[in-house]
């Protein structure tokens, strides 16, 4: 049967199990949107293409399935760029489908033409500019395969208008053999044996786990490793949820705003078991002073990450879950319990803490109350900045895929559309976006999307009237010169903003109003924005100033 390019895309999406897509139509992608009209695939119409890319990512991170976003050529495509970069940095599988001017016009600076495959080259796992409709089905198949296997990431398909209207015989091809792509890697049993031996001989081991544990689905294996060998576990921002943060062996997050005890544990350890994490600068602090006495076991699917930032003694290149399963077969538990006692003492002596002030809402208190009211059983997305770090510190994540935050790229405006994507993928879950007054204004137009599809996300704005994290840096490192960080003038009334979109708007200005506002929000079956007017100059502590070793923590 002959189908048009647009029909082939839809058929291929159906074969890949795509049920929801996020997008925004326009001229060159119209042939696709016309066929979508008759399709059973649910389309969420966002209000800005950036929202579509972040929503696709939120969907992917909450469900474990690839997210799909769609935009037209030119500005539609370039508006996806931040979202694609975000997915690339955090290794999240999304497919971005963009319209393109007809092949005959490519390169002529036609109306709404942008070289989106060129623009996105450094921020995609792979990309395709489709020139021949006969290759289209195979390209879609390969795109999904590449996005979801190995180290996941975004794949872009640029679809010229004439290719989407041309016809070809449709047959969904068998899995495509890509000779330049190796998603799975053999694990050398000898290396596993040596790593297991190193764990058995370690006196001061610590597990440092990241987003790779979540994308590999290895939480159970991680837990078994920690419990059997009695090794404390610290996670990265992206690793939150890989290991329950209420577990006695959990040290919470490490790094620049990590807990004191996780930073002490990794700094004084003699063996770091790094699992699906990449020793990012926000984790290591000053690199040459990072964990000076530690040997390193590094388990990662991406060979390029092993040895990139720190010297690795036991490289275990492979799928995290597969490697952990092998490792568990040979695991030798360290006998010495002194170290664990020491780490637990650090944990008891240095809890996360903040000062309460009568009559003033502390942002940390808001997060604590969200955790308390939901029992940790909701999906939390965050924006970027202080709100994100307080959420990471005070919301104890219990399960994988329930904490969704922009880690590598640090994209303000990520939280709301990501929450919308997560809610669309998990309709029965309670979804909170923990936001700041700065970040929320970067994509607040997506409140319209939430209302239009009745995706009842709860947006908790920690409103301090500042770009809080930048202000904190100015306070601590730039002599309190608050250059361009005061947002109080011009910031809208968030309650009225919510109401303008048809959402419920609530405000809390005193600590005793926090809990009732949250209770009302949770009980309301539609999108809610809560404006928490919080202490203006609260800082995120502990804090490792940039370029300092992890042990040089300030505050907290």
């Amino acid at each position, binding site marked *: 049967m002959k189908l048009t390019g647009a029909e082939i895309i839809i058929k291929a999406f159906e074969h890949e199990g795509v049920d929801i897509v996020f997008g925004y139509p326009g001229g060159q992608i119209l042939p696709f949107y016309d066929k979508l009209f008759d399709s059973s695939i649910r389309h969420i119409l966002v209000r800005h293409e950036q929202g579509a890319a972040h929503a696709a990512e939120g969907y992917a991170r909450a469900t474990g399935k690839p997210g799909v976003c769609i935009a037209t050529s030119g500005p539609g495509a370039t508006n996806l760029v931040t979202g694609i970069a975000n997915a690339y940095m955090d290794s999240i599988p999304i497919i971005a489908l963009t319209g393109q001017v007809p092949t005959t016009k490519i390169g002529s600076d036609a109306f709404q033409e942008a070289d989106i*495959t*060129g623009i996105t*080259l*450094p921020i995609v796992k792979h990309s395709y500019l489709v020139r021949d409709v006969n290759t289209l089905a195979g390209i879609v198949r390969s795109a999904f395969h590449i996005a979801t296997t190995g180290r996941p990431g975004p794949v872009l398909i640029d679809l010229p208008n004439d290719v989407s209207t041309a016809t070809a015989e449709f047959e969904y091809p068998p899995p495509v053999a890509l000779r*330049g*792509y190796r998603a799975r890697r053999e694990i050398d049993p000898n290396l596993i044996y040596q790593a297991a031996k190193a764990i058995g001989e370690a006196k001061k081991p610590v597990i440092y786990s990241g987003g790779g544990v979540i994308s590999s689905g290895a939480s159970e294996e991680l837990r078994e490793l920690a419990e059997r060998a009695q090794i404390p576990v610290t996670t990265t921002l992206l690793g939150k949820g890989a290991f329950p943060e209420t577990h006695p062996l959990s040290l919470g997050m490490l790094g620049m705003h990590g807990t004191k005890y996780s930073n002490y544990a990794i700094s004084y350890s003699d063996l770091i078991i790094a699992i699906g994490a990449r020793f990012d600068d926000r984790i290591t602090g000053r690199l040459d002073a990072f964990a000076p006495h530690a040997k390193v076991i590094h388990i990662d699917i991406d*060979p*390029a990450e092993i040895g990139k930032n720190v010297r690795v003694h036991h490289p275990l290149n492979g799928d995290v879950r597969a490697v952990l399963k092998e490792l568990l077969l040979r695991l030798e538990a360290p006998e010495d319990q002194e170290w664990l006692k020491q780490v637990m003492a650090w944990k008891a002596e240095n809890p996360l803490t903040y000062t309460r002030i009568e009559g003033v809402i502390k942002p940390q208190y808001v997060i604590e109350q969200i955790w308390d009211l939901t029992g940790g059983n909701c999906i939390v997305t965050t924006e970027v900045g202080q709100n994100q770090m307080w959420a990471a510190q005070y919301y104890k994540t219990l399960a994988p895929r329930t904490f969704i935050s922009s880690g590598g790229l640090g994209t303000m405006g990520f939280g709301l559309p990501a929450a919308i994507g997560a809610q669309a993928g998990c309709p029965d879950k309670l979804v909170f976006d923990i936001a700041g007054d700065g970040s929320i204004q970067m994509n607040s137009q997506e409140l319209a999307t939430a209302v239009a599809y009745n995706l009842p996300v709860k947006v908790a704005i920690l409103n301090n009237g500042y770009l809080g994290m930048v202000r904190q840096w100015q306070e601590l490192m730039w002599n309190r010169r608050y250059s361009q960080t005061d947002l109080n003038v011009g910031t809208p009334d968030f309650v009225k903003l919510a109401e303008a979109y048809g959402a419920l708007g609530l405000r809390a200005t005193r600590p005793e109003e926090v809990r009732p506002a949250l209770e009302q929000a949770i009980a309301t079956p539609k999108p809610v924005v809560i404006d928490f007017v919080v202490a203006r100059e609260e800082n995120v502590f502990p804090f490792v100033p940039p370029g300092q070793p992890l042990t040089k923590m300030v505050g907290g």
Partner: protein
Amino acid sequence: MRHTLSVLVENQPGVLTRVAGLFARRGYNIESLAVGQTHDPSVSCMTIVAGGDDLVIEQVVNQLDKLIDVIEIRDITQVKYVDRELMLLKVKAEASMRGEIMQIVDIFRARIVDIGQETLIIECTGDAGKAQAIEKSLKPFGILELARTGKIAMVRGPKYGDV
């Protein structure tokens, strides 16, 4: 240290951009890059000469290997291989100087491929050392133009990877 990378890639538009772009984005330095189709028309072979310490080169290789269009990559620096580069030089050559220039050309087993009124074009094939040497020898006569292909390389013995 200078490393020679032999890279088999899909013979498709945009692949060179992906490879060169990766070098630029990650701050790696390309000294020379030569690319052409192999005996399999769907595959091109790139020979890349890159500078950097062993850790940097290991990163280059690992990052290149992740590109879907890169089929195979080898650092052949430590392997026995043959390498060649083609160079064309236009040299100032008044009639009185031609004899001397032709002697140099003979010594290097190069060839004269064009004669103008006051110029000669010389074609020289060889490794980097030979190219450097002939350039140095012809310099006193006045080199007007110089174009070179960049190095291509092939491992000696049976098909690499088959042994």
